[in-house]
């Protein structure tokens, strides 16, 4: 495994969004990630490919899984990892994103992983630092490593993506996961159905090459994959929905609604889940249908691949 060399280099300096990647880029990342799946299951998980490299995780927004996943990924590759949670330090003192970036840049990191509540924050950061920037989620715009790990999970289970019918359901308007997945799954040849109440559906989403539905049952029909999204109450500044109870009734994934999808349909969720709001708790834990834990597991592999590729 260690002697597998990449034949082609990635076209981008930074990983800001799936939109910037070519299909070749995606394949480079996924191929690399596959090699780390087994390593992560083995007893000795440590490599030294990033030894001597410095990775800074810059998180302006609270995160548990993405941040720990990136931290673990970096450590397993041998990098020196520093995690900074800025939601309660410099920003409160009035420092701007650019100033923070300049400060960190002066410490000569090799890669910065950034999460920020504003769309486009990673783009702005990438213009001001010398090292590679990996976007770990910017506002509502993109969350590229999540989409890549979702794709890897689907390929792992279904052996392909091309020709699959995939439903993405829930709070689309506030979701960077939805946007990144739409770009990636479209690129890889899937048919994408977007399901959301009209209040949570972004304008002109059809122009991204997807089918949109406000009726969940219609949208789930014959789907191979059902990807549920979290209701992002923290981003809702005014009334979007009447109640969680009503939302669950019409847009929560229940066994009854899942019946509209294919019999062997898989359930995915980027987490964290609101059980009983967007997904039935038993379905979420059903090991025959739910691949939610696998997503987390492959997330580390995908992030290792991204760190390795973009660090070079």
């Amino acid at each position, binding site marked *: 495994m260690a002697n597998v060399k990449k034949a082609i280099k990635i076209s981008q300096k930074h990983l800001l969004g799936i939109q910037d990647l070519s299909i070749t880029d995606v394949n480079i990342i996924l191929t690399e990630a596959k090699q780390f799946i087994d390593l992560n299951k083995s007893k000795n998980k440590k490599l030294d490919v990033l030894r001597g490299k410095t990775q800074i995780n810059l998180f302006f927004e609270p995160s548990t899984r993405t941040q720990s996943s990136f931290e673990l990924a970096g450590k397993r590759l041998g990098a020196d990892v520093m995690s900074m949670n800025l939601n309660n330090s410099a920003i409160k003192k009035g420092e701007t*994103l650019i100033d923070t970036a300049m400060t960190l840049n002066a410490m000569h990191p090799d890669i910065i992983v950034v999460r*920020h509540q504003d*769309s486009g924050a990673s*783009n702005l950061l990438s213009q001001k630092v010398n090292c590679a920037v990996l976007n770990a989620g*910017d506002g509502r*715009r993109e969350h590229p490593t999540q989409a890549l790990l979702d794709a890897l999970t689907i390929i792992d289970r279904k052996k392909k993506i091309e020709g699959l019918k995939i439903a993405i359901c829930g709070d689309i308007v506030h979701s960077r996961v939805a946007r990144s997945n739409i770009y990636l799954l479209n690129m890889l040849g899937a048919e994408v159905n977007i399901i959301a109440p009209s209040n949570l559906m*972004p304008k002109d989403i059809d122009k991204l090459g997807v089918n949109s539905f406000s009726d969940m049952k219609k949208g789930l029909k014959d789907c191979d994959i059902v990807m549920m999204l979290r209701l992002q109450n923290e981003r809702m*500044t005014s009334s979007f929905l009447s109640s969680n109870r009503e939302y669950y009734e019409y847009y929560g994934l229940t066994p009854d609604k899942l019946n509209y999808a294919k019999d062997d349909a898989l359930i995915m969720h980027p987490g964290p889940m609101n059980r009983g709001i967007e997904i039935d708790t038993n379905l979420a834990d059903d090991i025959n249908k739910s691949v939610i834990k696998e997503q987390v597991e492959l997330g580390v592999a995908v992030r290792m691949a991204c760190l390795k590729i973009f660090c070079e």
Partner: protein
Amino acid sequence: MIKKKYFLNANIIDPQNSIDEVGGLIIDENGLIEAAGKKVNTNNIPSREKYIDLKGKYIIPGIVDMRVFVGEPGFEYKENFRTLSEASLSGGVTSVVTMPNTNPVIDNVSIVDFLKRRGRDKAKINIFPTASLTKNLEGTNMTEFGLLQAKGIVGFTDGYKTIQNTRLMSRIMRSAYDLNCLIMQHVEDKELSKDGMVNDGIISTKLGLQGISDLAEKIIIERDLTLLEDFNCRYHISQISSQKSLEVIKRRKENVEFTCGVSINNLSLNENDIGDFRTFLKLSPPLRTEDDRLALIKGINNDLIDVIVSDHKPEDEEQKRLTFAQAAAGASGIETLLPLALELYHNESIKLNKIIKALTCNPAKILKINKGNLSIGNDADFCILDINKPWVVKKENLISKSKNTSIEGRKLQGKITNTFVKGEELFKI
């Protein structure tokens, strides 16, 4: 007393006096226009006098820019009267209408005195201040329209804020009717557009930015024009951005009287120009689709839109070097107003005469000020234009104190070479 000036062989455009011909211009010793047009030639110039042969360059009345934000008082670091004046002169603008969104707000008689004094002492151009519609721009209590107007306020507006309360708006219109005041409304339903940053559509979806629906504009226009049917005051829509608004305006023109403006930004750019989160293109109203832009051009050609403004809103770099959500809205544009408008002439979207009209006599008529023309006996506020001169907009060359141009790097054609106010040459390339 100044020296008498003679200009010959110019293309003279003065829409108010229906002059659009090759001719000359004579400025008398008091800085007033003595004659303009084809009747001015070597035959009416004494042989001992020297004249300037403009060799086909254009003479147009000094531009009247109806929507300008100046940082004084309160935000002098963004723009003060002196820098505004210098920037304006380089763009051929000789009269500006300043917005009341300052600190303190222009909402009472005593601050108007201060403003007039500063304007007179620091600016070489004509400053026509507006005052706010409501005290401290809070949208609740009316300002003293009558007393403020008597002090020289030309119009009333809350600048980039909109009167949201319908009852208050109807009362404002009634008062304005009684006192013959001009109301200028920024048309935006702030509840509908809340947190919005760009046009609501595919671009907002792709960039993950909260959109501003064109309905937010349409709703306020519909509301105000409905009120106007009953309370017919002088009413001006500061600027529109969408096709939908134009449809309303076209329909309403049949039964109510009002006027309407548009920002040069919305005529020259569309939402795609925002590209990779370019905060300098975060504007209010937002840039909309190409279809909207083309509709606005048509609106000028059909006389549904009367005025083109720069919507000059200087912001220092600190307000723009932020994420798109955090960045301030607005662009500095007074010095590029005319050259950018000329792009529409060069690409044959709008006739030159129409463009000049929307920049000079149309705003002057709405404001009821005797500017924007070359009428005999008036102040000789005019500029000389080299209409084909190519140049590139570079922020380091801008004169305005703030460099937040929306058209950095744009190749333009046409530049002001000389600007005169009251017969005095105050800018020369």
